[in-house]
């Protein structure tokens, strides 16, 4: 099975019916103003875990906007994902404070441990490894966030332990 995030993935799409229902439910909570586009994308991603093509089409139709326009906005922002992500999200900070204190080594170690590259998901959909510009916890650099819990003063060893506890 190919790895997700490489552009060649063949991950099974979710049931279209489920996507449509969930996306429509989110849409119903917003007015049809263009300025709601980004909040809608955020909310739909929150519910579905990523932004499937069908959901983007529904959003465009709801706002009366052209599909390429909606796709253009969605692809502009780093937050939006277009392929499913793993059940556990590991995010390592690559901010300046973390960089000078060795965060690249942590990324390398995790890449080896999980046998994926930054931005990819393990084939069993268990882990996604990402880097983020800065979490703003620079005083405790290097920083890693595992499923929204922030861990400071990281080392490659400690990062493995955090994952180990979950595994």
């Amino acid at each position: 099975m190919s790895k997700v995030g490489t552009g060649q993935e063949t991950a099974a799409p979710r049931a279209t019916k489920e996507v449509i229902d969930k996306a429509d439910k989110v849409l119903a909570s917003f007015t049809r103003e263009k300025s709601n586009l980004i909040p809608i994308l955020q909310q739909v991603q929150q519910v579905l875990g990523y932004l499937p093509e069908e959901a983007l089409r529904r959003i465009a139709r709801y706002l009366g906007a052209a599909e390429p326009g909606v796709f253009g906005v969605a692809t502009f922002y780093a937050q939006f994902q277009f392929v499913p992500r793993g059940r556990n999200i590991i995010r390592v900070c690559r901010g300046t404070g973390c960089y000078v204190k060795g965060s690249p080594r942590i990324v390398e170690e995790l890449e080896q441990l999980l046998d994926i590259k930054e931005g990819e998901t393990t084939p069993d959909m268990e882990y996604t490894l990402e880097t983020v510009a800065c979490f703003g916890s620079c005083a405790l650099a290097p920083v890693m966030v595992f499923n929204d819990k922030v861990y400071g003063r990281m080392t490659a060893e400690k990062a493995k332990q955090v994952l180990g506890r979950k595994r």
Partner: protein
Amino acid sequence: MNYEEIRKKATSQWQALQNGQKPRIFIGTGTCGMAAGAEEILATLRKELESNGLKADIVQVGCIGFCYAEPLIEIIKPGKPGIFYGNLTPSKVSEIVRDYLAGENPRPDLALVCRDNTGVDGIIGFADFPVLKPQARLVLRNCGNIDPEDINHYVANDGYSGLARALKMKPQEIIDELKKSGLRGRGGAGFPTGMKWQFCRDAPGTQKYIICNADEGDPGAFMNRAVLEGDPHTVLEGMVIGAYAIGASEGYIYVRAEYPLAIQRLKVALAQMDKSGFLGENILDSGFNFHIKIKEGAGAFVCGEETAMMASIEGNRGMPRPRPPFPATSGLWGKPTTINNVETWAHAAVIMQKGADWFANYGNEKSKGTKTFSLVGKVQRTGLIEVPLGITLREIVYGIGGGIVGGKKFKAVQTGGPSGGCLPTGFLDSPVDYESLAAAGSMMESGGMVVMDEDNCMVDVARYFLTFIQLESCGKCIPCRWGTKQMLDILNDIVSGKGRPGDIDLLLELADGVKNGSLCALGGTAPNPILTTIRYFRDEYEAHINEKRCPAGACKALLT
């Protein structure tokens, strides 16, 4: 309700907390505290209090700025000054509860500092604490001292008195006071805030907007996060004052999605303001109406640029547009708009509370007041600091920061994020103000200060920033889109041992093109990390290119 009544109620609640018979325990649960393990400390604290049969008021507060010592608590026993304990572990917490809360021994061996000028029991006092001595905490005055989710704590500490005062003044008088204070923008180039407000006030149109730029995107900077988490009302008070002065009826706070706790605290604060009559219709019975909405960013550094931010709020790709027209005349949805960053709004509140003259006492001639910085990197005491402008870098790095970790040699301090530069030893005694930093080739920007030692390679640091900028370039204008890519390619070659003679000149030539040819400040300042490192550390570039050697021993490809 009028302000005096609200204040009276808040003050009596605050007094009750201060004069209570139970000890109070303040615990820092900002993002820094949490990252260091505050959750575990809080749980242990509760458990130990219970098993010792003790009662105490536990207050969760924001960052007090001693981030290096997180997790951190302050214990205030009735009639005694507060004592801070840092670098806590569950077992230290057990000992402190047993010895100081159940007993009378404040454990000077475990204490960090005492909230008292003279100190007690051999514990150093605030006045002698090297971390605080050079600081003047105006914007950060409440951070770590009040519960950020309780508006009464803010009000009891002069909160919203600036707004109450402003609403009794004419809008022009407020702007005049701002001008008199000398406040300059704290997020970018340092434009005088009073003038910015004046342009927007004078712009024709009935619908006007204000925006709070909380898209603190500079890697290595977290001052704004700490303020939003630790004292959101000080920012919001500034916004309401500004809206009244400018004549705006709607405001937006654009916050990075990477700051979930700040967003949550803002939501709580806005709801409380609304309930207390500091927001919404007929604010404090003045007839002034104003509403604030939160907009969550979606991960694009360029959205910190004001025209890009407005495009993003409108629901578009966050790409900058040429100025003029400036936002003051044609901003959000084409209406006059004032954008200031978190710290600038917070300063506006402080100035209206305490007065322009009081504020202008701090700082030097052209740079008035104080500035927050996040002091990080290879210093012993990292943290969130606020200092009078004009202080020297040495006082910050060695005084507050305690010097370099592990006895290593100081190499440079990086200020201004990806738009700034790396300043070498020679600048340690230069004042930190807008003009001096610009003259050195760096920038004030939002206030990230990353200290680097002899193990950091300056070429690699330049490459790091270029990698960031090249990823974040929006692609609209060619000098930025391609210029940053070309410069990055050259830097990648240099750090991997493929540098060629002439690369430095090529970099300088490209930097000039990108600096002068780019549409917005992202591109316009993108070459600064390269330009300053070439200017001050040219020998490191030459060693990489000519000798295929990394003097700092940091570039892997050159280690053999």
